[in-house]
């Protein structure tokens, strides 16, 4: 699982990642606590999954200005 610490635009992030479907990769929200969002993913390399999630958000017009953290949930 991966986590995102994102204080704002959480609904858009959840919607974006829950509907992500490229190269067979998917994300699914598992939990939400404060600014922490935890996603399950079918990617084996979780570091790569966290980077992909961050890059996907940063590509959005509303995501370019966001300051958030992405990492592997331990």
């Amino acid at each position: 699982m991966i986590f995102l610490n994102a204080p704002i635009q959480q609904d858009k992030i959840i919607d974006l990642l829950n509907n992500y479907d490229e190269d067979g990769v998917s994300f699914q929200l598992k939990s939400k606590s404060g600014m922490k969002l935890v996603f399950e993913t079918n990617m084996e390399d979780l570091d790569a999954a966290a980077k992909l999630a961050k890059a996907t958000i940063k590509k959005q017009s509303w995501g370019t200005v966001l300051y958030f953290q992405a990492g592997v949930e331990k």
Partner: protein
Amino acid sequence: MQKLMDWLEKFVVPVAVKIGSIRWLVALRDGFISTLPITMAGSLATLLNALLNTYPAQWGWTGFINAVAPIVAIDGLVYNGSLAIFALYFAVMWGYHLAADYDTDGLSGALVSVAAFFMTINSNAVLPIAKALPKAAADTLTTAGATVTGSTVSVAGAFSMANMNSASLFTAMIFGGIAVVIYIWLMKKDITIKMPDSVPPAVSKAFTALIPSIAAVYIVAIINYLFTQVTGQFFGDWLSKTIQAPLIGAGQSAGMVLLVSLLVQIFWFFGIHGPNVLGPVLEGIWTPAQLANIQSLKDGTPFKYFWTRGSFDAYVWFGGSGGTIVLLLAILLFSKRADEKTVAKLAFAPGLFNINEPVMFGLPIVLNAIYFVPFIIAPFINTVIAYVVSSLGWVAPVQVAVPWITPPVLNAWMATNFDWRAALLAIVNMVIAFFIWVPFVRMSSKVAAETDDTTAA
């Protein structure tokens, strides 16, 4: 806090998103950032020459100066190839990013931007002379193609490096922008030459860009021709004097410096990338000021600007935005919370190199009501102090670009060409910030002790 967040999401975030998604502003910011290798190379050369030449000359180390003369000469070449023609590099990067951000060919955009830049700057190398030349000497120069007036000799068709340094940045920005916008518009209107599929992609791309590029270059040429005909001067010279100099001068005002410092902190706190949103202002106004200072350092002339892009890093954002390295120290010394101490220990090493993401989200500071006040106030007070001290000339202005990961204090010392007073100012600011943070660290421990079990034994 939730109400505030809802309000922010409704009113502030859309504005920040709007600014952050204006493509030409993003291209402008990225254009500046892309020139970083060149800025660093030129800064390194200037710093090395200060160490090897300027100071030893003051100390009378003639033998040493002679021994390192080849290194100084090499540094001079590096400078000439980098910062001395900085506006040219910026024209390339600005044209590239602007065209690419609008989904057109970046390289063609870069070429158009550079062409526009060269058409706009003064193409006469003007040499001031102390006194009028004897008639025979003047005639000889005139025969060779120069124009001799009372106090100057000018050579047509010779671009001076003085017109390619940071003083011409706005020329590159405005005319590069105009040319590339015309190029993009024609590309989007599909006013292009279509080549058959059998033509290699590189050739096809060049032909596609042909009409838009020629049109853009001609329009800029016509504008410049008409301007020169009407006013008798080059557009670039006029822009430098009437637009760039006053705008950069406005960046020296307390209001602008403090406003930007405040906004960056507020943006960070609420999870918006402050320097990304304000990048065009930070880079567009204070980077040219810093480059002008490097030029002054190289030329040995008085500095023009006391507040530059690097001033924020040197005196305010030590350990990352918010000056968080001192918060980590305050936590390690005064916090009774085991969780905060664990984060502080983990975040301290990255914090020394101004990476504070672990503390921003680990502590966290973002959206942490207890830390809101010091996170905003400490950098603001640090900015006020650094601004006053810098404006009074008690420290050398920040002039040399140093990598942002340079540790606090060392950053201030190096950026000011090794002014120990700047290092002292950074330390004083850190101490002040430390005492601003301490009560809030204690408050955080107190609140935690009353509400949960995170207090250390």
